């Protein structure tokens, strides 16, 4: 155990925490604002700390605080108190644990040591995700059952049937992918996608296995209990589904767990199908080779992008009442952005001047890859939100028809096809 090892492990765990737990309030905010914009509304935009609204992000923190301080009410009819209390913990913990194997960056080489950039550096990869994503259903089933409420029970029965039927197709879609990639280790999978197909197309999973991509994304929606597969909640039919009886932070854990699960699903989709931490056409080796060029690009592009973003802020971040404290936010945001630009450019200029060294390049490439992963993750989460506010909920029989009669045969056919191609062409 040396210092660098400890630092890298701590950094990994912090990144994993940020991507899973830290993402929850941001995702709640994204969900509400995107929903507003899609429906021609504003969404939450009022809450502020000393005038700072950050586009309404502060509202998420206010809501979290509200959930923490609310009265934890438990109806008298609930007999299974232990099960009732542990159910949201299971949902939250399993969603959180399933996040831990996502690789944020390529293996980091410092000196003679190589570090795997995952929360948990194990090579079980996809299996780990499947195991813990599958466990989260216990929270929903037990919560619904322990609530001693018809609607909750209906919700959890629906959730149980849904997850059992969609997990099969999900796993089978994964198997065809694993045949293509030849590994279950997520780092290997992402590095495979860093190559180029025919010399010019990035060999992302979505290009190699489009059918598996569609099946997997659909089943991932079902696994995360997101619309159009959120019949477990189904507030138009069964009140609130499995969390009808929950209040305060117990409900909060279900709520956050849903977003963490969504984020974990997005992370897996990004890792399996959209090249993970790879920038298209820029593999780890290319990045390391041409790093000074990359720095020049950043030095030029960052002020330009900041300028465009600043113009957008000036145009849109206004509050109708002129003497309101919220109107001072734009000025401070612009100042902070200029400061950030200056700091980053100064650092890059220093490195351009003095040279960055091998270890420095490796660390900088890892930082760029983490940023790439974060952006891809955010985009995929946006797709989850976007689909939620576009599609209506499935009817129960339609859901089962889709799962068993369409997705399962398709995924099995895909396995055969993939195996034929792999064996036939010896790829």
């Amino acid at each position, binding site marked *: 155990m040396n210092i660098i090892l400890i630092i890298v492990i701590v950094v990994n765990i912090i990144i994993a925490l940020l991507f899973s737990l830290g993402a929850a309030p941001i995702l709640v905010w994204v969900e509400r604002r995107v929903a507003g914009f*899609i429906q*021609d509304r504003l969404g939450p935009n009022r809450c502020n700390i000393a005038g700072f609204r950050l586009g309404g992000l502060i509202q998420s923190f206010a809501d979290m605080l509200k959930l923490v301080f609310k009265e934890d009410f438990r109806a008298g009819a609930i007999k299974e108190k232990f099960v009732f209390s542990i159910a949201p913990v299971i949902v939250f913990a399993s969603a959180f644990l399933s996040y831990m194997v996502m690789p944020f960056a390529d293996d980091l080489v410092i000196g003679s040591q190589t570090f795997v950039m995952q929360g948990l550096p194990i090579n079980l990869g996809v299996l780990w995700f499947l195991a813990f994503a599958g466990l989260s259903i216990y929270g929903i089933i037990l919560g619904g059952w322990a609530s001693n409420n018809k609607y909750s029970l209906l919700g959890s029965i629906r959730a149980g049937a849904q997850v059992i039927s969609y997990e099969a197709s999900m796993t089978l879609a994964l198997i065809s992918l694993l045949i293509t990639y030849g590994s279950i280790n997520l780092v290997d999978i992402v590095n495979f996608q860093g190559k180029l197909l025919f010399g010019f197309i990035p060999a992302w999973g979505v290009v190699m296995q489009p059918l598996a991509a569609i099946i997997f994304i659909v089943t991932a929606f079902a696994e995360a209990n997101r619309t159009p597969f959120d019949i477990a909640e189904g507030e138009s039919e069964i009140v609130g589904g499995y969390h009808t009886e929950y209040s305060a932070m117990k409900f909060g854990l279900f709520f956050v767990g849903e977003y963490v699960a969504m984020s974990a699903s997005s992370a897996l989709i990004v890792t399996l199908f959209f090249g993970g931490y790879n920038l298209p056409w820029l593999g780890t080796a290319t990045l390391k080779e041409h790093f000074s060029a990359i720095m020049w690009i950043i030095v030029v592009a960052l002020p330009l992008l900041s300028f465009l973003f600043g113009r957008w802020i000036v145009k*849109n971040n206004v509050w*109708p009442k002129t003497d309101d404290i919220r109107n001072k936010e734009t000025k401070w945001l612009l100042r902070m952005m200029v400061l950030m630009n200056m700091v980053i450019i100064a650092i890059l200029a220093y490195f351009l001047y003095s040279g960055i060294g091998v270890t420095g390049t490796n660390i900088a490439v890892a930082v760029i890859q983490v940023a790439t992963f974060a952006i891809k993750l955010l985009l995929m989460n946006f797709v989850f939100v976007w689909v939620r*506010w576009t599609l209506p909920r499935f009817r129960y029989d339609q859901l089962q028809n889709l799962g068993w009669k369409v997705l399962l045969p398709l995924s099995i056919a895909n396995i055969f096809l993939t195996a034929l191609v792999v064996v036939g062409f010896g790829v």
Partner: protein
Amino acid sequence: MGIKIVPRYGKSFKDKLYLPAIFAGMKTTMSHFAKNLSDTSNIKTECYPEMKPQDITQRYRGVHRLTHRDDGSVRCVACFMCATACPADCIFIEGKERRDGIDEKMPAVFKIDLLECVFCGGCVEACPCDAIRMDTGIFSFVAKRRKDFVLDKEQLLAHKSFEGEK
């Protein structure tokens, strides 16, 4: 009652694939999102306490007012027509003799309990001398105590039409 089987909409392969329709729907929502994100002023939502509603018309039934005669005195003759027409029994009138020669009777007390009022406009319809109107445009009336919601004659006379006194 038998089961009615509705023929399924969409028989072509493209319809049965669903994905084109899903992507078309996602395109629509995306266009709304992009339009509103690029310029939030495209959104018609009014940030209410800061922005007042601009679409209050003459026919809007707001808080009541008592109208004035040309010389500024109260137009009401305390005929109790409004109180009789009121379905919520929220108008309380006490009449008294009017000695200034303009008319014979005028209200001594004219109270409207806004907590009881259902804003039906029945009193305005019933009034024979156009003495009570609901054209103040006041759509939100706030007070801290219940008794502050009972408006008396002076308050009602002080209310103005939102388009100015007529």
